[in-house]
């Protein structure tokens, strides 16, 4: 039966994250952007939020992707999206291990923060998700990671036998990369010295789809939080800022923008929950819905974060307010594992459904 409500445990989880985000993140956003989020990550592990979606026997909390999405969305909404990404940027690596190799030690250590594990970015494409390198003997493998001192780097690469998940603990960090957003997660170019193939991707299409869907939900949850947060921040500002004799919120040009931002961020939230529910309940087409969520996150995030800056006008453009940061962060978050555009044309079932 249709039900949009959260259960008691989920409500409690949201409340816990909300308190944490307000106290530890919102007031310190610029400081975190400058110094990074490593300290916060430790606190998040202590709170047990590192692996809510993983089974209890692997050190997780035995919940689902819905709970993971609630953690990420709430932390982004009440705290900051870029910071949330920085804290949880190890998750895609754990998802790849969990879905493709089932290496229990690696998952346990990752969830507890004992092993710094990261999934590398940039490279070539495979089946809608970016793979990282072509394996040929003479090739130098250069990747991008978001950990300053990772212990294990995972990456996708392919040779004649097809794509594989590879692991490397021997590499060299070459230089820091300049980028517009996600400054609390500095990115580095890294050269892989040696690696081993730990999983053959081609033979595991269902697991591969689950890995992709998890990563899409991970990124979209943060975008959903940023969108809600940006819409709310713009509303607060518009109710205080005067122009032409009244707060700008009371001019229809602005109030319509605020209404649209509210509507779009609410719509993204609903499809996020639906995608999580389908994933957790192993429904047919869960991967299609996760892809739709991801593409919608792209559209909504782009519009809402940009409109938030617009509502604040000049104030939105300078760093006294966080809106410019959300606009920058959004773009790097949505592109974190390659362009979302490559998922267009991948939907398998074109039948509309509730």
């Amino acid at each position: 039966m249709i039900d949009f409500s959260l259960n008691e445990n989920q409500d409690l989880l949201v409340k816990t994250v909300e308190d944490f985000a307000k106290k530890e993140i919102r007031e310190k956003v610029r400081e975190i952007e400058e110094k990074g989020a490593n300290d916060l990550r430790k606190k998040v592990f202590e709170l047990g939020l590192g692996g809510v979606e993983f089974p209890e026997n692997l050190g997780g909390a035995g919940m689902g992707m819905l709970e993971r999405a609630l953690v990420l969305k709430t932390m982004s909404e009440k705290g900051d999206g870029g910071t949330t990404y920085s804290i949880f940027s190890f998750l895609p690596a754990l998802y790849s291990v969990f879905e493709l190799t089932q290496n229990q030690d690696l998952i346990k250590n990752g969830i507890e923060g004992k092993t710094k594990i990261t999934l590398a970015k940039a490279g070539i494409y495979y089946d809608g998700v970016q793979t990282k390198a072509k394996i040929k003997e003479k090739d130098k493998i250069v990747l991008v990671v978001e950990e300053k001192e990772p212990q294990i780097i995972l990456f996708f690469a392919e040779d004649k036998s097809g794509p594989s998940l590879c692991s490397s603990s021997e590499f060299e960090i070459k230089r820091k990369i300049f980028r517009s957003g996600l400054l609390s997660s500095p990115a580095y170019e890294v050269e892989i010295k040696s690696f081993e193939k730990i999983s053959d991707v081609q033979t595991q299409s269902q697991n591969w789809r689950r890995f992709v869907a998890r990563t899409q939900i991970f990124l979209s949850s943060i975008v959903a939080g940023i969108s809600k947060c940006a819409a709310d921040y713009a509303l607060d500002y518009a109710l205080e800022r005067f122009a032409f004799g009244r707060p700008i919120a009371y001019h229809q040009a602005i109030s319509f923008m605020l209404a649209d931002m509210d509507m779009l961020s609410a719509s993204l939230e609903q499809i996020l929950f639906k995608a999580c529910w389908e994933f957790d309940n192993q429904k047919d087409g869960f991967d299609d819905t996760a892809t739709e969520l991801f593409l919608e996150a792209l559209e909504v995030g782009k519009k809402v974060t940009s409109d938030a800056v617009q509502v604040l006008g000049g104030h939105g453009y300078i760093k006294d307010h966080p809106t410019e940061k959300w606009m920058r962060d959004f773009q790097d978050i949505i592109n974190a594992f390659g362009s979302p555009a490559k998922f267009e044309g991948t939907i398998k079932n074109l039948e509309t459904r509730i």
Partner: protein
Amino acid sequence: MEFELSQNHKQVLELVKWLAKEKLRPLGLEYDKKEEPIPPDHPFFKEIKQMGIEIGVMGSDDVKSESRLKSFIGESKEPPMIATLSILAAEILAWGDQGVFMSFPGPGLASPPIRVMATPEQKKIFFDTFKGDEPKWGAFGLTEPGAGSDVARIRTSAKKDGKYYILNGEKMYITNGARAEWVVVFATVDPKLGRAGHRAFLVRKGTPGFKVSRIEKKMGLHASETAGLLFEDCAVHEDFLLGGEDYYKSKEGFKGAMETLNMTRPAVGAMAIGIARAAYEHTRDYFAENYMLNAVSPFAVKIKAELERMKRKLDIARLICVRAAWLMDMKKPNAREASQAKAYAPPIALDVITRCLELLGEEGTLEYHHIVNKAYRDIKVFDIFEGTGQVQRIVISKRLFASKGKPVEWGENIHGSPN
């Protein structure tokens, strides 16, 4: 959290789908070509009346409604979720044909204000009219030539004369207005009072001074009758003032009537999705039959991506409408969500239909694609009636301001500007 329909709801919706496909769709296409409303004596109306299908009957009596629904969907431990089921059914019926759906006999849009405002005696007289075997209609008359979104501007006057109110004025865009047995007519006892001067009356067909002034020629929705009504010294007994005099002493009462819009707005959104889905499915199936969905030409790739986007947008729009209805079933406030549904779905639906026509190109003008062309003409009004998209944005922003403890409107009596 759950996004699956109950087995009972699935069964009901299968039945609705059959009705939409076999009955509504062919009739809708026929009368679209004729460019005229289905006449009230068309056998279809008697047929569906015999099937027990009417619009606006639910809620005429809460106990009866529930037992009626139970007899339809069977006993279940689950709550009936009338609002949620209704809007899902509305989408399917609109998918069949929205014009025919709007022509369904029954109390129609007159039902919500009567349910909320009428006295028990008025309810009995009104709903008893619909009990016989003959199809009968009800209608709702609020809009005037000079007043649509701004209801405070209505000018149809109601002057008390002994035990009667004398109505004078004109109503416009009244669905089923010419064939209605009863029309709920909104008038004002004093235009200077704004909403406080409004009164609602039950006016019966044939009352002296009550005339049908015109049947509108529209862009689409041809199967549905849209009438103009004229009131010239039309005397209505005070017993037919909806709710009686006392009702209007409290502002809350009238506000309650307006809140029925929180149910109808998501339903209008759902109907828009239904119309667009009909166009989308036709276009998708056409390209699938022509082997275009797995082809690799640039146009084929574009078609697939466009169809995916349409499907995504329709699914999200439906989700927003269902959520607004679900909140109503849960007896939670839903004004903001209802307006979101109404503001979001119709433009999405228009966009989907337009993209279908663009993909079909010149071929889209062929008889075979009539359904898509029809959808294009039918859909536009969904962003207009039941509150335009702009009115919905006003409602949403007011709710947003209220959520921050701020006044919903900026008036002369509110100060605070530092400059």
